[in-house]
């Protein structure tokens, strides 16, 4: 059936080109393609045996996006193929087809989308549908979306649909149906007398409800679960303040062990910004806020709501080795980020100035107390627990202090230095029972030598020192780039100092090198890259949502293009 839709889509586009020169002039097609392939090989030293590969010597993830625009009309589709999925992606993704197709009409007054779409209300606490290719995550809605703008500064949104669940077609009672409304008013636009005000005010409110039939013989389950949120954004001069509060009624599910407590979440942010200085303070409290369109599933699927992370997203391999995964069942945290540029010409700033970024974040569990004298905390089929809104548990999930210096040394040299001190509760965040929390020091230097206007050499050296999990790591990388087309890189991660570390009941892992060699070629909007070598086991997180990456060895190829 989908192939038929696609055929109709192509024919419609073709007909515009054949019969309507005028239409053709006004129309536009955009698109992007990506193919990621991996060829696996046995590598006994890092535990990759023939039985691990299990005959699947090649993995391939690929997609193609096409968007057609004609005036107010837009249509688009995405083809995806996971044949078979690259190692670390969910095997349920195996398959290919067109999971995303839509048609939309957009005017100043109204936008209507029929088919598949993404949407977010506020910060996403009660609704965020999005796609993240690197995680293999996609909770796109399939249904109808309407955005109505009746007056300047006022936006009303309504959505109605079901969510994508890998390749499983939505059928009656197969999973929930999601309905939502959102209203946002930019008072400075709506109220004429405020248009010139220094105080900028945006307020919003949203409500989302899911319907899923109660076919469970064990519990009396709510078939309609509602969630509500209100938000305000205030801006005054160099200050900005944002807060959002969300409430969800009883939503017993596999994620919360089928307890009937209401859920709450609050996210606040205060920021100050001026030339050379930026300060951001963020606070968050989440309590029983997993919100999925199928109460029976767990894992990263069918999420209606989204809990944003308030931790720095690290980009270097060792600082990103233990990334924080948000805990929708409960967490309480804060982050403070200060960016300061020491002016050029000063003693510390030197000729070009020096950038300093200091970041601290910590996330704890929330405190939970028994709902009554006879019921243990989290007992299924009960209220679960009571939690005081302002009380923090002593249980620390995650702490990250990092400081970064960004220094241009001369016209041809620049460097980034970073130190990070991390605490990571691997038992909670990665489910590794009986593992001690990781306490790690990480330091790195990233130096770039611009040899000419076309050629540059970038060198990274990183070290991680820890007594826990797999012990110490060091990483080095040299990358030579001939802009704008070529790059060549060699890198190695070396896991050492772990001979004396007992990993519970695991075998002791021996020091290992995880070396890679890569090169890439870019021409216009097309990029082709090859990497050969080993991939260390780890975790990738984007926006607090994480995917386990198993160790692998072999050749990977990536081809991307946009038009």
């Amino acid at each position, binding site marked *: 059936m989908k192939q038929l839709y696609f055929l109709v889509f192509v024919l419609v586009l073709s007909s515009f080109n054949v019969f309507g020169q005028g239409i053709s002039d006004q129309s536009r097609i955009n698109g992007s393609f990506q193919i990621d392939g991996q060829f696996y090989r046995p590598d006994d030293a890092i535990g990759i045996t023939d039985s691990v590969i299990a005959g699947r010597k090649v993995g391939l993830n690929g997609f193609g996006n096409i968007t057609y625009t004609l005036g107010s009309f837009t249509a688009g589709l995405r083809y995806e193929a996971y044949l078979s999925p690259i190692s670390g992606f969910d095997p349920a993704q195996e398959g290919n087809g067109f999971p995303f197709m839509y048609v939309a009409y957009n005017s100043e007054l109204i936008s209507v989308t029929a088919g598949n779409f993404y949407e977010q209300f506020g910060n996403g606490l009660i609704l965020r549908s999005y796609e993240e290719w690197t995680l293999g995550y996609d909770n796109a809605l399939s249904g109808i979306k309407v955005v109505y703008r009746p007056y300047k500064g006022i936006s009303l949104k309504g959505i109605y649909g079901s969510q994508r669940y890998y390749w*499983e077609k939505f059928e009656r009672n197969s999973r929930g149906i999601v309905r939502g409304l959102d209203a946002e008013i930019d008072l400075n636009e709506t109220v004429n007398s405020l248009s010139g005000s220094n105080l900028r005010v945006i307020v919003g409110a949203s409500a989302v409800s899911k319907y899923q039939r109660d076919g469970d013989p064990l519990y009396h389950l709510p078939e309609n679960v509602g969630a509500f949120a209100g938000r305000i954004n205030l801006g005054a001069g160099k200050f900005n303040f944002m807060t959002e509060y969300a409430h969800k009624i009883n939503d017993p599910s596999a994620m919360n062990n089928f307890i009937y407590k209401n859920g709450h979440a609050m996210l606040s942010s205060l920021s100050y910004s001026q030339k050379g200085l930026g300060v951001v303070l963020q606070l968050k409290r989440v309590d029983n806020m997993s919100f999925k369109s199928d109460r*029976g599933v767990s894992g990263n699927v069918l999420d209606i709501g989204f809990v944003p992370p308030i931790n720095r997203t690290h980009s270097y391999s060792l600082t990103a080795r233990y990334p924080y995964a948000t805990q929708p069942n409960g967490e309480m945290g804060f982050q403070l980020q200060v960016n300061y540029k020491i002016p050029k010409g000063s003693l510390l700033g030197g000729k070009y100035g020096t950038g300093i970024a200091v970041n601290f974040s910590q996330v704890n569990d929330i405190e939970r107390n028994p709902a009554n004298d006879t019921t243990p905390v989290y007992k299924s089929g009960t209220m679960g627990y009571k939690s005081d809104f302002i009380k923090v548990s002593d249980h620390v999930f995650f702490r990250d202090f990092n400081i970064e210096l960004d220094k241009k040394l001369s016209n041809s040299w620049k460097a980034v230095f970073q130190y990070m001190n991390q605490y990571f509760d691997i038992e909670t965040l990665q489910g590794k*029972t009986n593992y001690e929390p990781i306490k790690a020091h990480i330091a790195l230097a990233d130096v770039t030598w611009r040899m000419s206007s076309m050629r540059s050499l970038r060198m990274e050296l990183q070290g991680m020192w820890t007594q826990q999990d797999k012990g110490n790591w060091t990483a080095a990388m040299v990358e030579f780039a001939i802009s704008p087309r070529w790059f060549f890189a060699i890198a190695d991660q070396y896991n050492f100092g772990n001979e004396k570390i007992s990993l519970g*009941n695991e075998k002791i892992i021996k020091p290992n090198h995880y070396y890679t060699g890569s090169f890439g070629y870019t021409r216009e909007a097309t990029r082709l890259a090859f990497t050969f070598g080993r991939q260390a086991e780890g975790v990738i997180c984007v926006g607090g949502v994480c995917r386990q990456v198993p160790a692998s060895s072999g050749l990977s190829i990536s081809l991307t293009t946009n038009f």
Partner: protein
Amino acid sequence: MRRFLQLSVVLFALSWISSCDKIEPPYIQSGGGTGDNLTRKVLLEDYTGQRCVNCPAAAKVAHDIQELYGPKVVLMGIHTGFFALPGPPVFMLDLRTEAGEAWDNHFGISTAGHPKGIINRTSKGGVYFLSPGEWSTATAAIIDDKADIKINLLTDYDENSRQLNISVSSTFLRTLGGAYTVQVCLVEDSLVGTQFNNDATIGPAVIENYVHRHVLRGTVNGIWGESLTDESGAVVGTIVDKTYEMNLNADWKAQHVSVVAWVQRASNLELLQVEEVHILP
């Protein structure tokens, strides 16, 4: 403009008041099936492991379902993959079986991650396994189905010689096309060992004396069973008898051992009927 806003607010409120179900206690239902012989029983295969932190909670879900439906639900704990690896001195038990590993590989359990369950080997879009939160609903969806096959399962166990005789008699209650197989397994209950856990209502993070329930110990007639009919199927009233003789493993406690037998469709492995009998009364 004002009228529009007022209307919007009213519509907004009405739609949400009508779409929230606040549930009042008691939250837990009671009463299960009738135990009627002529309805289809349900086999819940719980793929588990002693190193799997989420598995005790899953085992509790399976237990709750069996509590609700009684003997209409047959449980089998199948220890497989990385999470079932033994590791002295803590993990002394090796509860893996050749059949369990083969089924795990066939159904993609370890690739998807434990715990996972399979209900009567029914599949959706080629995927057999379900997360524990889906087990009860999936069980309820089929437990009142009419049975197409009746199994008469008898055992005769000699405590002195430890010889076990098993008789499986399968009666077709209606005419069925296609090939069918019969699978016979041995299950041992209440094995005590260490178990990782993350459900505080069940116990600490490391439970030293965890009781593993309904553990698959092996199959009697091969990993995928043996043929009951060929592709032509069987007409209503057809009875196919199978008998087996074996000696019970000396390490197994006979008072905890039961025989589980089922008939499945050869083409898609879906179970049509399952029975369990303890070898000692």
